[in-house]
């Protein structure tokens, strides 16, 4: 008896797993198309990127193992990468939290309005993020001549005498990128917040009022935020990932490469080495560094947000 009970579970465990797998075959079939594509274009590339980053690879010759050379060059010799890293972190630290707060605050304010007005404002705030190349309108706003709206405005009211070269002067480039990126940033997380606010249990507010909640700020902190923590976590992931990957706005507004690399980011650096210079080993090292920055930031912020309202 004793021996039987110890041996039998080991066998049945394996058999059980096999049985379970066989029983679940329809689920695997349903998942197969997505899983194959997802593995091919997302999971395998991450592993490949890590592997290639230890090599010299230009697509024409087979990759040559170079150890940590790419990483050493990246952090010790490549001054442009350090600029890109600095710019990316500035953009992330500024636009990340600001866009996250904007998305939440606007969603929160909109939530109080009547349905028609609420839909209208949702559209107004969300539209920039799905408007394709409409952010090129900012080229006209920040145009460096007297016709640019920003220059014309500032000159008309006497703030400046000569037009500012917003897109060519390194001291203004980051400001322009931040403004445009914020304009674009009310995307998926904004919608998640709107939806989250809508689904907060209304009776909690009445109960809160009885328990002594006096104003909207207390209500926000003690009831609203804790009830929509899942959406807050989801929104944070979306915002962090987007802000650390800023590239298109920089490339199309201030140029690629920008004057003195003042608008250079990790992703534009990656694009430079990956698709212009075809130094794929080096590009992969950049990608790998970016990958770890993104994952680490996400996991840290997630830990912090989990504590909200606890």
């Amino acid at each position, binding site marked *: 008896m004793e021996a039987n009970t110890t041996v039998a579970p080991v066998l049945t465990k394996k058999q059980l797993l096999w049985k379970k797998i066989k029983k679940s075959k329809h689920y695997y079939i349903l998942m197969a198309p997505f899983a194959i594509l997802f593995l091919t274009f997302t999971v395998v590339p991450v592993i490949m990127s890590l592997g290639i980053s230890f090599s010299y690879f230009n697509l024409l010759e087979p990759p040559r193992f170079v150890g940590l050379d790419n990483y050493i060059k990246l952090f010790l010799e490549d001054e442009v990468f350090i600029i890109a890293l600095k710019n990316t972190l500035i953009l992330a630290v500024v636009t990340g939290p600001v866009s996250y707060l904007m998305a939440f605050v606007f969603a929160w304010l909109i939530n109080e309005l009547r349905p028609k007005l609420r839909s209208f404002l949702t559209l107004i705030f969300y539209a920039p993020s799905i408007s394709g190349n*409409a952010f090129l309108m900012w080229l006209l706003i920040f145009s460096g001549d007297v016709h640019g709206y920003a220059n014309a405005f500032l000159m008309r009211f006497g703030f400046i005498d000569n037009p500012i070269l917003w897109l060519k002067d390194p001291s203004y480039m980051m400001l322009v990128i931040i403004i445009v990126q914020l304009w674009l940033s009310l995307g998926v997380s904004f919608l998640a917040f709107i939806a989250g606010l809508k689904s907060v249990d209304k009776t909690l507010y009445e109960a809160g009022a009885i328990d002594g909640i006096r104003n909207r700020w207390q209500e926000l902190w003690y009831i609203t935020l804790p009830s929509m923590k899942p959406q807050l976590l989801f929104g944070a992931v*979306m915002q962090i990932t987007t802000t650390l990957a800023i590239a298109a706005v920089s490339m199309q507004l201030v140029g690629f490469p920008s004057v003195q690399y003042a608008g250079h980011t990790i992703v534009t650096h990656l694009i430079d080495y990956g698709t212009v210079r075809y130094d794929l080993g080096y590009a992969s090292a950049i990608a790998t560094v970016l990958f770890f920055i993104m994952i680490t930031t996400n996991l840290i912020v997630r830990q912090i947000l989990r504590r909200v309202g606890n």
Partner: protein
Amino acid sequence: MKLFKRKRKLNRSLGGDIALFAVLIFFGIFSAFPLVMTVSNAFKPLDELFLFPPRLFPRNLTFENFRDLSELIGNSWVPFSRYFFNTIFITVVGTVGHVIIASMAAFPLAKYKFPGRGIFFTLVVYSLMFAPQVTATPNYIIISSIGLIDTPSAIILPAIASSLGLYLMKQFMSQIPDELIESAKIDGASEYRIFFQIVMPLVKPAWLTLIILLFQRLWITDGGSFIFSEELKPLSYALRQIAQGTIERAGTIAAVAFIMMIVPVTFFILSQSKIVETFSHSGMK
């Protein structure tokens, strides 16, 4: 004009309402101004484009910019309709493929327990934490090694496996009552029938969300380094070539931006409430 439902709301002060409403108006203008100008500039003659203060509504409404655009495109050796077709093809095939394939995968993930489910979903959630740019280089190698470079599939296939769509669809499907699926099973329906005939119709709001997310991504794709044949290039590429001009092209640029933005925005206007509904299930733990 009772914009706030103040009387029925608890814990609200008039002063607070006014201050917060002012903030909304200010940022609403910030958000809307470039879009309104994009629309209005597309219909302005050149001499009105550079006026300050800018006119929100053109005095001499004109279709000149669109005519210039089509003329410029007419001069290129690939007919305009070809670029247009390429974009439509990539967008429609990619979006439809994404909705079907991501939903198929989302269904078992949301409703059943089976070996490998946990790890697969964890991978999906982790993939939301990094941007697709990270995998661009190896993707190029993979796509070229399976011979898809310079075909629409190079853009379509990676987009179909967009993990955000799977994630949202799975979260949305989780709220379908199990009894519905159980009773269908008792009636003898296969998993595939349950999926296509019961689950899919129930998650229509989530379709729209997946559609808009992928649609706007594919609609503006320029083919990047994956497509280099001129006759396979999408619309966005052609339009950008034209737009890379000087001041004289400002009107054309506006026309281009208008065309690129109007399609996804219109789609969102029509499906907004359904899309927001989907996001109420987007939460993470």
